[in-house]
């Protein structure tokens, strides 16, 4: 069956946000601008979306094998975005393009919308299950709330983003999420130039937040949970018992080293790492992310929608 028949395309009841769903992909898209421009952008998003899952699945076996420092020539544009985003990490660690699949899809849809609507869109947010591709026209700004664990919703940090910040992607990875993590972070949120790069970096940094061999961390081979996981027999985190402050600091410091290195190499703009109530931030621009300690769940919706 082709994606044109299978995909769901509809507006949320607010009549403002577009919901696209196909197989495991769920996108919530919000565009701001002149109505005629927004409509054209939404049409382009839906048209492009219908083909995305089939394209990805056609190259799925290759996308599930480890990347190499030199990007492989995938045919699909989304697959190429994924491979490009993970290739910089391939020399140092195990990583497959699947680490950037959510971000890659979000970027692709955002690109389709921008090419259909030209430069007249004020603001676009393509949210793929919490991995977000973002476009801000000059003069536009937005605020992003960071939630450590959706089941304990409190903002641990807030990022104020403006057009000049060159941030086009926001992604979060962590052990409690839908996909598997090798690390124990509750959440690692990355701001980067596109969603695929943020997605890949979030996976890498979240994997680095870890206490190797610690008995308080329950791990299982990935294939034992999902037979066709790209992680094979690698141990993925299932549960983390409450940790003492020293262990939390140790684990976060490991992640922070990785995050700072990515910031220094210009691969990401900022990272916020969260584990059991403790937050660490690595940022090129110290004013970009502000730590929050308030109980505010208004931004939560963006992640729950997907």
């Amino acid at each position, binding site marked *: 069956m082709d994606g044109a028949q299978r995909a769901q395309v509809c507006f949320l*009841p607010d009549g403002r946000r577009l919901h696209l769903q196909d197989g*495991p992909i769920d996108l919530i898209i919000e565009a701001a601008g002149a109505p005629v421009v927004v409509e054209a952008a939404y049409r382009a998003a839906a048209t492009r979306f219908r083909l995305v*899952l089939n394209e990805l699945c056609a190259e799925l076996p290759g996308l599930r094998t480890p990347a190499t420092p030199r990007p492989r020539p995938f045919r699909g544009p989304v697959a190429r975005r994924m491979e490009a985003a993970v290739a910089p990490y391939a020399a140092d660690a195990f990583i497959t393009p699947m680490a950037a699949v959510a971000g890659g899809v979000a970027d692709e849809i955002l690109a389709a919308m921008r090419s259909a609507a030209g430069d007249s869109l004020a603001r676009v947010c393509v949210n793929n299950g919490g991995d977000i591709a973002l476009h801000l026209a000059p003069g536009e700004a937005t605020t992003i709330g960071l939630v450590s664990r959706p089941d304990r919703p409190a903002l641990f940090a807030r990022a104020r983003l403006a057009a000049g910040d060159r941030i086009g992607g926001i992604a979060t990875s962590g052990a409690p999420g839908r996909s598997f993590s090798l690390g124990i972070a509750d959440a690692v949120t990355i701001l980067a130039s596109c969603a695929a790069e943020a997605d890949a970096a979030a996976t890498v940094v979240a994997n680095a937040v870890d206490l190797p061999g610690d008995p308080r961390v329950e791990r299982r081979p990935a294939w034992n949970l999902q037979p066709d996981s790209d992680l094979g027999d690698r141990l993925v985190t299932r549960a983390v018992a409450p940790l003492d402050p020293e262990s939390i600091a140790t684990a976060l410091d490991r992640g922070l080293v990785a995050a700072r290195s990515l910031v220094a190499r210009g691969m990401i703009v900022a990272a916020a790492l969260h584990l059991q109530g403790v937050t660490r931030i690595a940022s090129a621009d110290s004013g970009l992310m502000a730590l929050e300690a308030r109980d505010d769940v208004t931004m939560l919706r963006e992640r729950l929608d997907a």
Partner: protein
Amino acid sequence: MSHEQVEAETDDKVRCDACPVTCYIRRGMAGACDRYANRDGKLVRVDPHVLLERTMERGGSVVPFSRNASEWAGAILPEDSVFVTAIGAGTTYPDYKPAPFIVSSEVDGVDMVTVVTEGIFSYCGVKVKVDTDRYLGPEQATVRSEGEAVGHVTTGEYGSQMLSLGGVHHLTGGSKKEGRVTCDALLNLSNRRPVELTVDGGVTILVEAGASPIINGVREERMRVGCGSATIGMFAKQWLGHVDEVVVVDDHITGVLSEHQAGKLLDIPPTGVKMKGRRSTPGRYFQVAEPGTGWGGTNISDPLSILGPFNPKEARPGLTMLMVSTTGEHYGFYRLDEALRPIESELPEPLRLSVERIQENCEPALSTVMFMGGAGGSLRAGVTENPVRLTRSVKDALTRVTCGGAPAYVWPGGGITFMVDVTRLPANSFGYVPTPALVAPIEFTMRLSDYAALGGHMDHVRPLSALTQGDARHVRQIDGNPWPVRPSERLKA
């Protein structure tokens, strides 16, 4: 369904063909989309499962189960017109696991979440209100089904007899058979099927929610219009000038027109009628006969048996008297002969009209069944990690409790003990487990932010649009039920 749900080390993997990802799914796990899962080696949606469709029409039909994707491709129901009931949702075990469905939707601009689960209720029962003045049996008498004690007769209410059936003592406190029979009776009554009950020292009664009770083989058609005294008060003026005396026969309070305050105010003279029983206040008599299934809920078939001889100082030959029951089903018209004995004769036209008026004012007699259950600590844990906060949220009216989409009355005081009219639920909403216990749907609806605040399982919240496709059973909203997810002023506040 979530990744947590399995720990079974089996090898019955299935290949999902719902989309081209074709996930290889282990037993008890869900695929990448969380929409399809491997249940006991078979690919299933986490359905089928009843979605209530909001509509002004009644009697809508059921959309059959279908996995044919083309039938639902592109279709989505507006969020404010679908409510996910707990019927068929299943339960989770052990209890701390999140409820099977936690669904978010936006209604009137407010983000709402409904936590949907089927509760297993060991503490549950039904309260049956039987609209009749007939005597069903003594208060506290045991009520039986298939010979087993399943409940008891409780206090009489206005125009009705109350039965209290089930409860933890009959379900789990007696013999194994008592528990099983009680569970059967509760299940059948809750699913609106007729159940025959016998009352120790009383009647055999066929009870069916929303239908007339059948008492000792006779269908009870109407409720009484009021007690005998109330009936005098209501119709005194209509009798004036057409008859000298009226006696309204009633098991509770038999009324006598000429002695009653209503008669006095109309200057109706004394008639010398002499009532048996105990006089309460003028014109109002208790215990004129034994309770029974005869006239007005008494055991009499001859109304004259409740009268003594007329007082010759006040009575006169030719004096007329109407005797009527509180439902108008029984009546007789009498004229005193020379010896002041009442002789039955034909009912005059104006009095026939008044008897018909009494009948007309009697509402149809029904058996009504209220399911009553308590959502205990265990069920609440599927909603939130901190169960008492759910209770508080319900008490504070921040969370609305519905049962299969039907409004539930939550008792004040501790816990979440609720009652629901079983006729307000879609058919066959109740199930059972052999524990024995009843399985009843229960939904908790609140603002998304309130759900977060009470420690809800936020990572299990999914949008309604993810559920409205595919195999769910859609039923029309039952006429008269308020829409469960519309935020009330309190919920909006």
